[in-house]
């Protein structure tokens, strides 16, 4: 299963090689040209159709992770986060370090050794460390280096009710949707550029340069987004819910969706009976934030698949939502072929 391979691949921001390789193989048969740029973005297009509009579809390859910053004399590794992680989810997790995927664990002081007051305090990232089993610094230095990237050691698995669990669904799910969409859009008369961007999690750094190079007439970003449909959250604050269809972005902290694109997405979904929801999230940013401000401005929109426990070692999403998102992307692009570009 492609999503399993994508989810279990290691690609912390700026080290996206494993995901890039999987995607390159997948796209070889269905695209005309595949290239990479200086930031490592993977850019593929269907075929060149002289004079036709250029549509950019974008999903990011990178994931949040950690980086080794210091090796203590006793052989344990200090680390910082790469991208935004709630430090409270780090403790009692297994990780993999560096290119050789050296296994390690993030432990915590045994409950038996804690003072009652300690249990009321969160374990801060600066107090945590990775244990690779090394008996001292010298032994640790044989297998890890300062600057090594660290990912969570999480397996992909199918759960009941079309649900799946795994790491890095943000945004490997987007990568999957984009690959599936490209397979179906290979004969489109539009110029479709699939951009698999780098470094989204550290400030949406990859997508902007790709957008500049392509200079598209329209961009659609495909993301995984927070679902907060969990107990003790007011329904008004759900932002999105798992299993209710792909979420169409209205606005977030980084951009306001182009009104024409948003309306077209909604009308296409209605026309083809694709369930959808509106992403009611004002926080968070996506690659669209960079893309829409590129050059003289690029009309941009976004659709996302809701995921619970995003930016943690393991998330849950619905394959129904994923399949509906593929359908929505394809039908949206086809609508441009039929009706032209959406206007404000």
């Amino acid at each position, binding site marked *: 299963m492609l999503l399993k391979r994508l989810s279990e691949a290691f690609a912390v921001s700026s080290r996206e090689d494993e995901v890039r390789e999987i995607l390159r193989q997948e796209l070889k048969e269905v695209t005309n040209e595949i290239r990479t740029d200086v930031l490592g973005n993977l850019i593929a297009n269907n075929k060149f159709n002289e004079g036709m509009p250029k549509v950019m579809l974008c999903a990011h390859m990178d994931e949040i992770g950690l980086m080794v910053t210091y090796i*203590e004399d*006793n052989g*344990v590794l200090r680390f910082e986060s790469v991208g935004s992680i*709630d430090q*409270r*989810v780090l*403790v*009692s*997790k*297994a990780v993999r370090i560096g290119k050789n995927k*050296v*296994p*390690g*664990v*993030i*432990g*915590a*002081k*045994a*409950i*038996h*050794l*804690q003072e009652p007051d300690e*249990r009321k305090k*969160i*374990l801060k990232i600066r*107090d945590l460390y990775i*244990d*690779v*089993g*090394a*008996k001292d610094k010298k*032994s640790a230095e*044989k297998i890890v280096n300062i600057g090594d990237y660290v990912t969570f*050691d999480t*397996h992909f698995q199918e*759960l*009941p*009710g079309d649900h799946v*669990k795994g790491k890095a669904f943000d945004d490997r799910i987007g990568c999957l949707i984009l690959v599936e969409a490209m397979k179906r859009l290979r004969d489109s008369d539009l110029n479709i550029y699939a951009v698999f961007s780098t470094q989204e999690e550290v400030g949406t750094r990859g997508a902007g340069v790709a957008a500049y190079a392509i200079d598209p007439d329209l961009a659609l970003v495909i993301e995984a987004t*927070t679902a*907060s*449909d*969990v*107990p*003790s*959250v*007011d329904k008004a604050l759900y*932002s999105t819910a798992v299993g209710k269809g792909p979420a169409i972005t209205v606005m977030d902290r980084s951009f306001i969706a182009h009104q024409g694109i948003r309306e077209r997405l909604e009308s296409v979904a209605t026309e083809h009976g694709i369930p959808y929801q509106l992403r009611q*999230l004002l926080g*968070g940013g996506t690659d669209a934030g960079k893309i829409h401000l590129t050059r003289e401005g690029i009309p941009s929109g976004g659709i996302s698949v809701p995921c*619970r*426990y*995003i*930016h*943690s*070692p*393991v*998330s*849950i999403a619905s394959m129904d939502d994923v399949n509906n998102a593929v359908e929505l992307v394809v039908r949206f692009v086809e609508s441009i072929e039929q009706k032209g570009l959406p206007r404000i």
Partner: protein
Amino acid sequence: MELRRRDFMDFKEVLKHLSEAGGVSGQEGPVRYIASDALGKYADDVRVDTFGNIVALKRATIQRTNESPRVMLAAHYDEIGLIVTKIEERGFLRFSTVGGVDPRTLPGQEVVVQGREPFVGIIGAKPPHVQSPGESKNVIKLEELFIDIGLSEDEAKKFIKVGDLVNFKRDFVELSDNMVAGKSMDDRAGLVVILKALKELSMLNHQVDVYAVATVQEEVGVRGATVSTYGITPDIGIAIDVTHGHMEGVSKRDTVQMGGGSAISIGPHVHPKLFQSFVDISREVNIPYQIEASPTPAGTDAFAIQITREGVASALISIPLRYMHTSVEVASMDDIKEAGRLIAAFIARIDQQYVEELKCF
């Protein structure tokens, strides 16, 4: 030497299977089959008592009296975990803890809910973006956490009921320097020590019957050992458990050295002669050891064994362990192997007279 290394790899494999299986106190079933199979390889007889304790007997190879003295080895095979307390709207599960669990280690933890069939779940909490400012500085409390298994409320109620037990899900990890990590090393590591001891004994002669017991319900009050000791009526009982190994942020006063060999306990729940024998034998056959002071008798099977029936001479041998009661407990395969050798060497050296002298103070 080559042979020994291969055996050693096998023990790591056994520990992997034991560690990854689920067996929360009171529902140790999934581990029971693995443990009894493993014990059966080295024992003359294996039985399971009404509590679920596995009792494996390896008879004396030299019999000098009608009834050989009895030595009981005990390691518990239950583990800490969670228990379902409520099935919420839309299929989310609320839970409480079984044994000493630090709620701070739970967010983002994968679990297996032992319902009518096992279900993989994730422990979730309110997502950061709907928290009020400053909330991310607070500890997430147990009552704010839930298990997400991806089932609808109706399905969840069909397959899962209140009271079902939940174990942590963690693949066994081989670290460097012969260290291993996983859940439930407490006390499946102790069980592997017993296996190693039995294996060593199969190459030695001994004058005592060895009762190797995998006990249940240790984490909820050393209950399995209480009844199994009564049933066996041993002359000597040796509990094999885990103790805190050195780690960042903890005083060396409270820990023993990882890879430093077995920790031989001294304290009220350890018979002074047994303690001395273990130290002497470690020196004699060159087995690494360390001494752990345990001023208060509590928390291990030795506590229960000692005060069974007319009293049993008890000892406690512990494997150094980091991050106890998390899902990433770390232990050293070297410590496990050496502890097994030590126990075998002890058993091979004792006889009827030794046992009788334990009553003479």
